[in-house]
């Protein structure tokens, strides 16, 4: 499976990663070689195999519906890049 330049740009966009123009070919090469390697999976017929999402064959445990968390906004926002009036600021969102 070989990825071309457009593929890399598209994936990088989907993952919201800025990639230098000049490093795109290197990403294309590296990602293609990883995908080639991964393609060995195709050798096995998995038709009748149930997928395994998790190592534990267990069910989800449930939490009682109770308020247990105190929120320390000051501490949480001390590490935020930009806040004002208790809000996290981002460049204007256009809907």
């Amino acid at each position: 499976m070989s990825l071309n330049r457009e593929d890399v740009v598209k994936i990088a966009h989907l993952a919201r990663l800025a990639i230098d123009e000049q490093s795109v070919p290197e990403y294309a090469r590296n990602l293609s070689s990883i995908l080639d390697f991964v393609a060995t999976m195709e050798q096995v017929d998995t038709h009748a195999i149930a997928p395994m999402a998790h190592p534990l064959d267990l069910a989800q445990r449930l939490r009682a519906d109770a308020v247990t968390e105190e929120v320390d906004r000051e501490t949480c926002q001390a590490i935020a890049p930009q806040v004002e009036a208790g809000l996290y600021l981002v460049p204007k969102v256009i809907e």
Partner: protein
Amino acid sequence: MEWETVIGLEIHAQLATRSKIFSGASTAYGAEPNTQACLVDLGMPGVLPVLNEGAVRMAIKFGLAINAQIAPRSVFARKNYFYPDLPKGYQISQFELPVVGHGQVTIDLEDGQRKVIGVTRAHLEEDAGKSLHEDFHGMTGIDLNRAGTPLLEIVSEPDMRSAKEAVAYMKKIHALVRYLEICDGNMQEGSFRCDANVSVRPKGQHAFGTRAEIKNINSFRFVERAINYEVERQIDVLEGGGKVVQETRLYDPDKGETRSMRGKEDSHDYRYFPDPDLLPLEIAADTIEAVRATLPELPDAKRSRFVDHYGLPEYDATVLTASRELADYFEAVAKACGEAKLAANWVMGELSGALNKAGLEITESPVSSDALSGLLARIIDKTISGKIAKEVFEAMWNGEGDADRVIEQKGLRQITDSSAIEAAIDAVIAANPTQLEQYRGGKDKLFGFFVGQVMKATQGKANPAQLNELLKQKLDG
């Protein structure tokens, strides 16, 4: 060409849990920004979700109420996209295996017909935060208090054929979630909102047309307007030789139109996959039975009972069961006063009128069900007439006390003493010889004139039945 509209709704109902779906932070509405967003809600590095049992039980309750299959095993998945109100960069939702399977509800159409609308599925997911677009130096502010609030997304089949049907369906689900006490139904606060999938096709065509999804509509009125606008728009496009584009649109209530949301177009590859932080949700049969035991009487069953037990007309029963609170109010009045039809008339008439005028909910009524049944009791025992009762009701609404007090203070007690009524009649007859002559000459209609005059003379307090009877005797005498 004649067109047919096809509508499916995705309703988001915020579940009325105390804490969030995957964290122990409070869900209370209206707190200072980001004071109810705990580490888990903020998507801090290293934090993990743990599922709220209350949210699961509410989903089961809903499923049972629409006769749906409750999945013995369902799976939480991540829906990946970047948006500033989505802290983790993914929303935990359910994709392939939802907790509630196929069910249905019945809606009432305007022509009195009923229609069954299929519910494809309902699944649990977390709500996002809010973007505030007030000006922060040209930036947007993000409040994550709402992030992680449990939502039940209820997806209908594309079974609706008009905006009115869509509204009827949405109202039905609204009533249902409030009956079940799993959602406060507050549309202004966004607790109950919907996305509408709308398409049109030539009448008779089997295949669906291309649909547009109108996002985040938060009132019944807007649903109707947004759909009607969108239908017109699509028909215009098609009749103009164009093609409807499959896209997400936003309804602008100020302009009364929908517009394309270009911003979200490129992120449609949500890359769903099972959330590895959560295990499959397994619901045992005995849990389902335990939840079933907590189900209240649902609107349809209540309506039938109101017809059978109280002898109400179908129409009255439908109106009175529209909300659980209204039905409870009616029942309290009907039981206390013993005359269901009288109670129904008053609740649907005077009371609902006054509530509408004042913009109040039944739960906020200044006249309690006890107070109203106290008033009706005075009609039944003939202390006052129905007409006087309206005056008493108004005084009660204005806080002048209960029925007995108002009747006493205003001296509105009905006159049932025959001799007093007879005296009033005699006086009226004596004062109107011309009319008496005309009446006796065959002008029957004048009977009403005499009733009015006697009522006037008694300030409306004469018992109407007695008055009728005695007046007839005297006039015909």
